[in-house]
């Protein structure tokens, strides 16, 4: 059975994923439209939206890093994380 803490953590993770995924989705989506269509209106709108989404993603990552930096438990957990491909000793 899931505890209330599990549920709260799941919800927090889901919100965090949503915060990061939404601008990423916009970048991917508008880039695809930019690639597939060559009309001026799409070019203007898509490029403006990509820049805006990149700013939003950058701000979300900054907020996330600030939050992680304030938590000893999270910092400790991060010592277990290695970039993909990096060997553990």
């Amino acid at each position, binding site marked *: *059975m*899931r505890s209330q803490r599990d549920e709260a953590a799941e919800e927090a993770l*889901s919100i965090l*994923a*949503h915060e990061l*995924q*939404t*601008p*990423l*989705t*916009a*970048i*991917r*989506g*508008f*880039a*695809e*439209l930019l690639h*597939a269509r060559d009309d001026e209106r*799409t070019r203007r*709108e*898509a490029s403006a*939206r990509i820049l*805006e*989404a990149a700013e*939003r993603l950058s701000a979300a990552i900054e907020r996330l890093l600030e939050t992680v930096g304030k938590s000893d438990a999270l910092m400790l957990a991060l010592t277990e994380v290695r970039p993909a491909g990096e060997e553990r000793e």
Partner: protein
Amino acid sequence: MRTRNAETVTDSGGEVSVLVVEDDAMVRDWIRLALEGSEFRLAGIAHTAAEATELVERRRPALLLVDYRLPDRKGTELVRDLRQAGKSIPSLLMTANAQQGFNEAARDAGAQGTVLKSGRVDELLQALRSVANGTSAFDERHPRRAPGRAALSPREREVLRLVAGGSTNREVASTLGVGDETVKTLVARIFVKLGVRRRAEAVAEAHNRGLL
């Protein structure tokens, strides 16, 4: 001809009218551009579930494309409310990320499909086409619901609705015209399916999943 203001967008060039319910401006604009040139036309754009309910009435769209995380309700709740109000419009629910049990929750609410907001135009159009053609389109990237969290039967849902309204087992039995033991069994089954131990938890969990 195309008309546009802050609330609605109409494009008479398409064939299937879609009401988009999405609170994020960036995603809304992507969907609007993505649908251009397809067989789908925007019947309108709602930012909240409340706006959507109003626009459904006024615009009578053929399809609903609904975000799960709306400011005032969950997308599943909106779809369920509309169905309960007798408006069974084929609906496709969107989420930003894959969620365990989301397809089952969407199905329980009465939606015909789910789609991840991946930013891929072909995925969005394909899912809309399936739902428009009367076939379901549940995105397989959502992991299945964990065992023990099966969907509630219509009878179980009826019991849960009465429990949520504050009825005791005896009152539920009397309302439904069944025996006390039957209600006890149904309540026990609901607890197992929702993974809870108390009535209040069952009600909270049911609200959380958009079952009530």
